[in-house]
């Protein structure tokens, strides 16, 4: 038993190393001087030079903290938006009887399948009519309006797994739907909410295209847009700074995942996708 467990750990650790070799290479490269990054093979580090971090932080028009803060605002807005609006829609789909439920549910599923690129232009025209270009609204308002149907679907499946007896009991006590939703369903679906929060955080933190199109002033740039300012397709790219700041960017996501993963597993586990 003990030997087999040792073997299993050994295999897993080797697998881990293969999995994260590219990441390790990036971490190592972030400590290398620019001109050695593509010349020195392997992961051996001759010196631990933090110059890429110091330079990368202040290399762009604004300090990197500005971009991190912008990304944080967008991510926070997106998380709150998704949590509130998706859970409300999910409650209606999972628990309420109303006319057109099946049709609307079908349409909701259909919107998951819609290729994103084709609505970009019409949406841009719409949001620019609202005067929202170069604001965070186009990145946040769609979440406030539950356009990420994936999460509505996830939460519907989750709520269906919560025993109906609980809301029946509350209803007999005279509770209305807002109270049942707030006092019973929401607390019980904390894990699903955590899942949504973490996925939303990761997706919105990494979103490049939407941010690129809507944000025009450097003061408003989010991290993915800022990172590409290190890259010049025709001129020189500061790879060291790019890698260093990529790691700075990755750290909060990894942390969020590390902290949230308990809820994550529990969240999906209890959705009862059956």
């Amino acid at each position, binding site marked *: 038993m003990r030997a087999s467990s040792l073997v299993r750990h050994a295999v*897993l650790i080797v697998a881990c190393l293969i999995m994260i070799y590219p990441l390790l290479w990036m971490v190592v490269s972030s400590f290398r001087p620019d001109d050695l990054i593509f010349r020195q093979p392997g992961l051996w580090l001759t010196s631990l030079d933090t110059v890429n971090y110091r330079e990368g932080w202040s290399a762009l028009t604004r300090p990197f903290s500005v971009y991190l803060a912008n990304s944080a605002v967008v991510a926070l807005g997106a998380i709150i938006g998704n949590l*509130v609006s998706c859970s409300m829609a999910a409650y209606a789909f999972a628990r309420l009887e109303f006319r057109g*439920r099946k049709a609307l549910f079908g349409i909701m599923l259909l919107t998951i399948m819609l290729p994103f690129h084709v609505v970009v232009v019409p949406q841009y025209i719409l949001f620019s009519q609202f005067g929202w270009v170069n604001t965070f609204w186009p990145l946040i308002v769609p979440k406030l309006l539950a356009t990420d149907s994936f999460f509505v679907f996830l939460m519907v499946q989750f709520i269906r797994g919560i025993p109906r007896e609980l809301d029946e009991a509350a209803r007999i006590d005279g509770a209305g739907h*807002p109270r049942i939703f707030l006092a019973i369903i929401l607390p019980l679906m904390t894990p699903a909410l955590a899942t949504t929060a973490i996925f939303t955080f990761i997706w919105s933190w990494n979103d490049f295209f939407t941010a690129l199109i809507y944000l025009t002033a450097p003061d408003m740039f989010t991290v993915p847009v800022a990172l590409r300012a*290190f890259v010049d397709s025709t001129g020189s790219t500061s790879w060291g700074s790019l890698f260093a700041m990529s790691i700075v960017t990755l750290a909060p996501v990894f942390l969020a995942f*590390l902290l949230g993963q308990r809820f994550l*597993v*529990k969240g999906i586990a209890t959705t009862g996708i059956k």
Partner: protein
Amino acid sequence: MARTTTSRVRKRDDRAAYVFLLPWFVGLVVITIGPMAMSLYLSFTDYSMLAPPNWVGLDNVERLLTDERLHNSLRVTFTYVLVGVPLQLAVALAVAVVLNRGMRGLAFYRSVFYLPSLLGGSVAIAVLWKQIFGSTGLVNDVLALVGIAGPGWISDPRTALSSIILLHVWTFGAPMIIFLAGLRQIPEMYYEAATVDGAGPLQRFRRITLPMLSPIIFFNLILQIIGSFQAFTQAFIVSGGSGGPSDSTMFFTLLLYQRGFGELDMGYASAMAWLLLLIITIFTAVNFIASRYWVFHES
């Protein structure tokens, strides 16, 4: 419950439901349906984005039928979906099964295996991938040790798609997490009973894990298929947006993007998007129908 009560409750539900659905409904109508309708209209026009659209009727549909690069991109995309999705799910399931037994360091392994998925569409991915699959990358260095001269995985049209499929498999974190969750739900007593009956690990996997997990496999399958048909970022980053070499990684959405934004042919690109939506819908529907025969329901 008496019939009158039901209808009274239903009536009250209608009002409450519309209130709860209001944000979603506003979003659906304004942000989703509006632009969708516009793209449907655009798919019957010639639209450069620089000038107003011109109605061309079914011209774009005709082009869909004769566009050889589009047919090639469908081949590439179907290969990616049919090979990549099962492969990624198999790896995710295998890792989840190995990680499922209560073992030390579980949280650590889980996080490390999830790490590549966090990297997503990072700019650095293209460079990192080249470090591994470039003709002077890690894979070929290893192959050279045993005397094999490997191809330039990314740059050879015969292997480029495989390396992108591998990149996809590499980011198996999300389905793995979902599988882990599902495995947790299978009551331990089933396994105990099977062990008593003398079933080996393989048999236990086939007789208990697979059927008990089938709803979750189905859920993953549906979402991964939808996601893979729309695959864009990885191919875009690895090929620098070109879909090369020789169109071997020209995914449908990549071609759509090139036609729409590169060639300023948004009318045709819109028609392509609707074709893709149709394909995904058919695939999903077939999957739902097929699921009746293999997805196990407890009750």
